[in-house]
């Protein structure tokens, strides 16, 4: 499935959760994997999502470095 992160598509396995997406995002952006704890994920309306939140195909999220 594809999740739209900060306006760019990231392909990831079906059933992925926010925590999985953060790891993929970190690797893709050459960030230290330990730094994912500094990243915050929000839905398209700006609500915080936790690492266990399920993701859907074509879901739009924002990842910001806090």
């Amino acid at each position, binding site marked *: 499935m594809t999740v739209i992160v900060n306006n760019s598509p990231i392909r*990831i396995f*079906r059933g*992925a959760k926010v*925590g999985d997406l953060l790891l993929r995002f970190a690797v893709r952006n050459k960030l230290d994997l330990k730094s994912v704890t500094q990243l915050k994920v929000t*839905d398209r309306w700006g*609500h915080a999502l*936790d690492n*266990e939140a399920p993701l859907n195909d074509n879901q739009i999220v924002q990842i910001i470095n806090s």
Partner: protein
Amino acid sequence: MKKYFLSIIAFVALSFNGIATGETVRILSTNDMHSALEKMPQLAAIVDSIRAIDPSVLVLSAGDNRTGNPYNDRYEPVSYPMIQFMNLIGFDASALGNHEYDSKVEGLAKMTALSNFQYLAANITCPPETGIHVVPYKVFDVKGVKVGVLGITQVGTLGIPDTHPDNVIGLSFQQPEEIIPQYKWLSEQCDVNILLTHVGYEVDLELAKLFPYYDMIVSSHSHTQLEGGEIHNGVLITQNGYQLPRVTLTTLEVENGKVVSKSAKNIFIDKSTPRADAADALLKHFKNSPEMERQIGFFTTDISTYDALGVMMCDAWRDELACDIAFENYGGVRYDVFPAGPITVKDILNLDPFMNTAVVMTLTGKELSDMLIACFKADRNRFPITSGCTAIVTYTDSNKTDIKTLQLFDNDGRALDMKKKYRVMTNNYVASICDSPRKDQGERGTETTSDLIIRWIEKVKTVDYQGRNSFIEVWNNH
């Protein structure tokens, strides 16, 4: 505790708006508790405090009460600890979350039979022989006000909830927007109408658009943290993250059979929240679960390396999921020595403690090779442990800075066919950190990798992996 109790009194008292002619309906709502056993004593204290002021408060869960803690999810009967807590706290109703189906129809039937509260889902059809006790709705009499609560369970793109298809054999589901209009008559008979849904915030926004005659949606599934509640198209929506960071207390003022005002506030659950003694005693009981000490097998020899333990774990996953190859990152093994002797459930939960689940993919030999190299790079230059294939890894230098060549062999010693497709399993952590090109990203399952190992050891009974390894490392400066 006294100070906290007084603050709850103030909190609830403030929710009175001074209307003398109407009634106040209060709802305490939770969602996605996911086996948060440790927070149950605090939730019990909060509910007790509110009930001391308003005994008629409705306590609702929007589902996914289970899945997230082996002390609950491995209990037999499954999820008994959470159900006992919910019974003790006095929940009035729960929606069915997609994880309520994780122990198949039989598990759900047991859960519904043990619960003193009602499970609500209008868009599920359960044949009587399943033994699942679920009804579409329930009408509560709150101080003479008729409060109708209609339950909706999650239905994914496959037409079933997001769980393994085997878990819902014999059940059928309908999309929420198809079923909700069929209960318009219920909304006309009730003074207050609530949708108790497990469909996610985004779908709830659509439901609020389509069905504005509902006063409130107790939302769930997407783990969305709302600040209090949000009103969309006149419908109040509430939801709070994962494993009870907060609960929501909603106040509805009702006059002449209509809700005239609505407001919602979050109550945080943290270390400062008092705990109810009875629930604490229950927690202590469940944390001493005999399941954790249950012997599942026997190590005939010491296992004294990460590699050997990793190979055992990968063998277990490969076997349980009928894959050609399984692999995991070196850091996924949390023991370095495992002495000969009995193996318990707790041993395996400590060996593989991350609550990871399996991701199964169909990969060509080339895609697998690329993925193993990607894993090496992402896992601090440590080559992953494999089952179903062995590897000769040649590094560019003795510091293992980079892999120069990688040769993969099947269990018969033949070179892996780079064009052939293999069914490959790894855990969700590895599947996430390996950003190599592959056509099939795979699918994440719901059963934890530790549960797969436990099931495999129960099957094979004795385990001997001393000295096992899955790859040979070569340093080549030429």
